[in-house]
């Protein structure tokens, strides 16, 4: 009775086929590579600008960590992260997450995926996973590019942490990886919001723009003291809160809080996306 395709493992493999295909399509698009290249350009520009300028910064001047870059190249990726998080990373996530369903709708391929049949919840899961993989790819790209350019232009050695402790170069790589993971997780909530917005329209540019606007609005709300009660609930609240990961001893508390918050956003907005998409008339 159980042929290769209907056995549990066969079904799982067939189920993963769409995910592989989604990732292949995502990472074969020139747009995706252009965005990752632009992400990589941020630490490169930053490092080159610091290297070329003769003026030395006073401690605390410019973005956080910038004053430390000349002493240790490993700080380039941290600085670049702080620069990219408020606008540039949300912009790329907005493009990818906003495109998920609306992009398929505008190509007309949504109807063919559903007639295949892909299954509506399966398609949403695959689309969200694709966006999450892009978040990780963007964070890793930034950290790797920052580390490489930092090592190229500046001295590299044991890193003095914010707490004043000194850690070895290999351990600083581990900390960089943690920061990349933190940032990738931080962007999941926004990805889920983008997925939801994407189910509302068949105009991908609209969904992309709306997602970016949501991220900007959240950050504006986050600086208004009158809304202090709201701040812990904003998905962008912990975006820059990775300093615990570059202190000694390693402080996981923000990581945990942020992960729970993002999981909440993912749960709520994925459910909304499903509620909208499950019964939607596909007219595109």
């Amino acid at each position: 009775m159980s042929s290769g395709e209907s056995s549990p493992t066969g079904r799982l493999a067939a189920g993963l086929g769409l995910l592989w295909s989604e990732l292949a399509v995502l990472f074969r698009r020139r747009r995706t590579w252009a965005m990752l290249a632009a992400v990589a350009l941020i630490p490169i520009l930053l490092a080159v600008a610091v290297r070329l300028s003769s003026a030395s910064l006073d401690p605390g001047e410019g973005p956080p960590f910038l004053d430390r870059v000349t002493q240790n190249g490993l700080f380039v990726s941290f600085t670049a992260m702080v620069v990219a998080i408020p606008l540039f990373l949300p912009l790329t996530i907005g493009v990818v997450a906003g495109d998920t369903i609306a992009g398929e709708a505008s190509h007309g391929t949504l109807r063919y995926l559903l007639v295949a049949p892909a299954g509506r919840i399966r398609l949403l899961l695959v689309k969200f996973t694709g966006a999450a993989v892009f978040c990780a790819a963007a964070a890793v790209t930034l950290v790797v590019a920052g580390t490489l350019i930092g090592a190229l232009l500046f001295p590299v050695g044991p890193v003095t942490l914010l707490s004043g402790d000194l850690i070895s170069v290999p351990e600083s790589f581990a900390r960089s990886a943690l920061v990349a993971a933190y940032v990738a997780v931080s962007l999941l909530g926004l990805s889920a919001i983008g997925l939801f917005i994407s189910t509302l329209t068949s105009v991908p540019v609209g969904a992309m723009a709306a997602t970016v606007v949501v991220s900007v609005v959240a950050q504006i709300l986050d600086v208004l003291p009158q809304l202090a009660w709201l701040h812990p609930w904003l998905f962008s609240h912990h975006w820059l809160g990775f300093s615990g990961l570059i202190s000694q001893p390693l402080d996981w508390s923000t990581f945990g809080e942020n992960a729970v918050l993002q999981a909440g956003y993912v749960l709520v907005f994925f459910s909304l996306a499903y509620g909208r998409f499950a019964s939607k008339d596909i007219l595109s």
Partner: protein
Amino acid sequence: MPPVPVAFDSGGALALETRSLTKRFGRQIAVNAIDLAVPRGSVFGFLGPNGSGKTTSIRMFLGLVEATSGDISVLGERMPDRLRDVLPRVGALVEGPAFYPFLSGEDNLRRLDSADRNASARTRRDRVGSALDRVGLGAAAGKKAGAYSLGMKQRLGIANALLQPRELLVLDEPTNGLDPQGTREVRALVRSFAAEGTTVFVSSHLLAEVEQVCTHAAILSAGALVAQGSLDELRGAGERTLRVRTPDAGTAASVLARLGLEPSLPPTNGDHAEVTARLTGDSIDSAHTDAIVPALVASGVRVRGFRIDEPSLEDRFVALTGEGFDVVR
């Protein structure tokens, strides 16, 4: 919610069946209580002017659009409840082909094939290859779909419907954008699917296309089904037309009138004037029509031509929809 589910044909004689299928968009009724019965093994033409509800109906059959009311059965299974089991057995071209322009034709088909949970990844390459060959796109398989001509895209869309052995093919306007040669090729493909035992459901606003390949047809007008049946049944319900070519038009008309017909005189008299009269199915049997020429000759009418036109589907279509193939406004 329908209070009592309607019992569908369970013997499996029908590939597609609907009961009072209705779709409203706001106040507008796109599809109005249609009862469709598509026999298995038929090539079924779904005819109607643009905007008459063909594509909306097809979207409902395939579970893309939810019906406002009514029931659908595809391959003996209720839709959209049994969508996951039914759709792998159905190949579809819906409202034109659609592809990722940045992927090659081959990669597009692989992508859509991977969306089908039941499709084996092991055989994917072979199935995609043979589907492309079947529609004559083997040589262009590696070319980006964005660079395909309209006709090639249309064929790629048909190839997508052929990735698996299908019991039912739903082809929405399959010859749209094709040149006459391409149209002929699609007709040949449709015939070959039918020869393999696949039921083919073809929608079209082009009557000639349906007349040439279909065994059955349904006519949709402004969302309502106005006729369906085998092509002969549809034609048979129409009227035959008698045409007499003669220089003696006046005399001929009076003879025909005496025989109980309602002749109409040609606008111009001349050597080749043509008197026409409608033959309504019941009142004129063949014995009666056989008596017409002797009666004309006996009255001295010089009969230069005598013809009975069988009803064309087009006449029937115009009679039923009250219009030609114009867009419904």
